[in-house]
């Protein structure tokens, strides 16, 4: 169906793809796995005509085809869904799908006719999307299905999905896989990039493993295991679960009382002590974002009520900057929107938040930036957190997703923090890096820092949190011991059923 043959692509002196060979059989679901920066996205973008390969060829149905632009790819029946969706928020589903589908459509836009086709496609694949809905009113999962529809509408026979599950909740992932299976039944071919090995095992027929720009191996999914894939990907044995000593909690660092935000947070109270990790589990959109942003000082004071005591001091009136100065670090859930200046260099990103004080600035006036110490700081982050490529002059945009994440975490560790607010730390991050980040978080805890960890991955919170709270509809519905509670128990609480019945 689709074959990449000896594809090579360089970015500057980074060899992103080195003689990559991938054969995707028709009617199969083909997974591509590999560490961050292995070259998965690059290979797929080449197949989709987004980048042009330096050498090598792409074969469709056994014939070499010149694919220079996405238009060429679409004409050959290849569709791609990027992790960051390309939808116009204020337009309807139908408008988005028709937009640019065929040249000239803008003039003779037949939205109504298109709507009918979209509806029948949506029914055929059980996507449950209304063509008249406006994008900004849809959930992330629904937007993703709109992207799928867009490709289907353009009669894609091969769908390339770049980390489609990274933004989905576990329930949404299940539904999504149902859709993919249905597509396979209808004869479509699916290529899916993911970091989650259980997903690979659950959905794919075949799997290709990449590392350092090269293809290391192909496996039939039925004939491989998570452990083997992990070893291939990382090149060594990977601990899928971090080892940690029991926590030794110290004094109370953060004490939150009846924190409320209209329609979002409802009387949240808890404490975190030095040297412990408090995990917050919950289905996304239940107030986690607001809670973390409120603690970081990014929510308007007037929208909040309740009190936040940090290290014995009421901080709910303090600005984000003042809180950082006190030692509250923050790893935001949306790294590109909140956490990075994508067009700025790694070095410039490594001082965001501390750019105005020593040692980022120098001189008696404290105004001039100090290159030497900025570079030194960037270098510490790069080395300490294994950011690749290790070049502080590169724009953050040129780093792969996982490396962007390591850059942010490294920067926040440099603060140094007394309290770390960390949200979805391993989203879109490869298993080697997940292990690494988890070890860093536990080490930070062991050094006496308090950590508040929000994650949609149940695995993650149960693995590294010392205490675990469950949030539902802006309320803490209970606390469990992560070593004892079962996933079913926690899952029930996440769905709104409370374990300790505290009806009011």
């Amino acid at each position, binding site marked *: 169906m689709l074959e990449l043959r000896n594809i090579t692509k360089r970015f500057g002196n980074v060899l992103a793809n080195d003689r990559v060979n991938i054969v995707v059989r028709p009617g199969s679901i083909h997974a591509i796995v590999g560490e961050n920066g292995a070259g998965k996205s690059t290979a797929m973008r080449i197949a989709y005509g987004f980048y042009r390969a330096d050498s090598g060829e792409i074969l469709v149905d056994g014939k070499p085809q010149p694919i220079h632009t996405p238009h060429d790819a679409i004409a050959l029946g290849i569709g791609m869904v990027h992790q960051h969706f*390309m939808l116009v928020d204020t337009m309807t589903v139908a408008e988005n799908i028709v937009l640019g589908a065929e040249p000239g459509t803008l003039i003779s836009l037949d939205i109504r006719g298109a709507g009918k086709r979209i509806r029948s496609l949506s029914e055929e694949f059980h996507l449950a999307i209304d063509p008249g809905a406006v994008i900004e009113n849809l959930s992330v999962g629904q937007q993703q299905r709109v992207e799928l529809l867009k490709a289907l509408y353009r009669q894609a026979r091969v769908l390339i999905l770049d980390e489609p599950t990274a933004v989905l909740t576990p329930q949404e992932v299940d539904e999504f896989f149902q859709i993919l299976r249905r597509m396979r039944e209808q004869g479509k071919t699916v290529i899916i990039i993911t970091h989650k090995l259980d997903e690979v095992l659950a959905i794919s027929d075949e799997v290709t493993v990449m590392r350092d720009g090269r293809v290391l191996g192909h496996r039939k999914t039925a004939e491989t295991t998570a452990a083997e894939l992990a070893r291939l990907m990382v090149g060594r044995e990977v601990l899928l679960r971090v080892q940690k000593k029991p926590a030794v909690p110290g004094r109370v660092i953060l004490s939150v009382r009846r924190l409320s935000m209209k329609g979002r947070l409802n009387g949240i109270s808890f404490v975190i002590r030095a040297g412990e990790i408090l995990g917050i589990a919950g289905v996304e959109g239940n107030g986690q974002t607001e809670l973390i942003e409120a603690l970081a000082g990014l929510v308007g004071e007037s929208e909040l009520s309740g009190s936040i005591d940090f290290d014995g001091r009421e901080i709910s009136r303090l600005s984000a900057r003042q809180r950082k100065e006190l030692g509250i670090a923050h790893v935001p859930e949306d790294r590109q929107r909140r956490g990075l200046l994508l067009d700025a260099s790694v070095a410039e990103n490594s001082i965001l938040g501390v750019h105005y004080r020593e040692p980022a600035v120098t001189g008696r006036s404290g105004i001039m*930036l100090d290159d030497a110490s900025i570079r030194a700081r960037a270098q510490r982050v790069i080395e300490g957190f294994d950011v690749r490529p290790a070049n502080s002059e590169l724009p953050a945009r040129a780093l792969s997703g996982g490396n962007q994440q390591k850059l942010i975490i490294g920067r926040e560790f440099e603060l140094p923090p007394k309290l770390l607010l960390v949200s979805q730390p391993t989203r879109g991050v490869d298993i080697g890096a997940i292990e690494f980040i988890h070890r860093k978080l536990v080490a930070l805890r062991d050094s006496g820092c308090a950590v508040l960890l929000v994650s949609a991955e149940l695995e993650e919170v149960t693995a590294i949190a010392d205490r675990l709270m469950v949030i539902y509809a802006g309320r803490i519905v209970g606390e469990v011991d992560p070593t004892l509670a079962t996933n079913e128990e926690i899952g029930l609480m996440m769905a709104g059923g409370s374990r300790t019945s505290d009806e009011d």
Partner: protein
Amino acid sequence: MSRIQGYAKNAYPLANFLAPLRGARYTAQLMKLIRELTFPLIAILAAFLVGGILVALIGDDPIQTYALLIGSALSWPDGIGYTLFYATPLIFTGLAVAMGFRCGLLNIGAEGQLTVAAFATAWAGISFANSSAWMLIPLTCLVAIASGALWATIPGVLKARFGSHEVINTIMMNFIAVGVASALTQTYFKQQGDPILETLPIGDGAHIPRIGQIIPGIPARIPLNMAFVVAVLACALMYVFLWRTKWGYEIRATGANPNAAEYGGISVKKQIVLAMAVSGGLAGMVAINEVLGYRYRYYQGFSPQYGFTGIAVALLGRNHPAGVLVAALFFGALTRGGLFVDIFTEKVSKDLVLILQALVILFVAAEAVFRRRMGKTESQV
């Protein structure tokens, strides 16, 4: 967030944040410089090519026309002198617009800011006409900067406080500026019986020296004055401000990603006001050239839309002070050469210059498309 929306929020893809931290490897810097220069240069060449075809179609000889254009702009001393003179206000307005861009703001109001500044400067020069030059020159320069800054701060505050869009507000402020300056001139500062809408002359002490008075060999009739030196210094200062100080970092961070800036403890509102003020101050410095160095008075219509040409200059100069300097010199040369083309060719008028400018901008703007084709700007996961 969708990518398309992302672009729209980011608004000005040309306002790229990248600036080398000093001391990086030379070759890398050189490569980057070459990359940065390639597109503007191609744009200029393409514009001249299309312009040449137009000239030929009109029925003049393109080679001769261009020889005239370039020759008259670069002759010594008049050509160079006037080119630099015409470039001076464009350096200021180009810097002003670039400063806004760097903070994610489109300051369309440089025209109004420089109008207000020119009037205020003339007012100060008239009101304190009897002071000595030692007093008067610094005072009038300060007034030029402060009044431009103040005028720009108003839309800055409106944006920061109420979120009203700076493009609309700065355009409105342009009309108000001209109206206010004209009315005040008419009522209080006009010479009796003068048919032109202009103020009284400023005091002699406020005249800044012409370059010809300082450097022998340049005739003093050429109006090139110290304001040009100030403009070059302003370029250097702006570079230092934007890339070497923490304030510049905050402005650029705000322009690059306001959400991340906020996260980094930067007050986006403050940055908007600050960037507008600095931008307006730079626009106001046009008054130093026009009022203190050339006409020695304010008169209505003194600016042939310097503020708007400044947008083109900033665009061509990629919102970098060095680029702005070069782009302004280029535009200055075109202005100078255009006069000669107008007079000494049969059919081509000086509108050729406007066409060339427009073409350059068009081609520079097309750059984003080229870059994409070359697969350079695509973002990662």
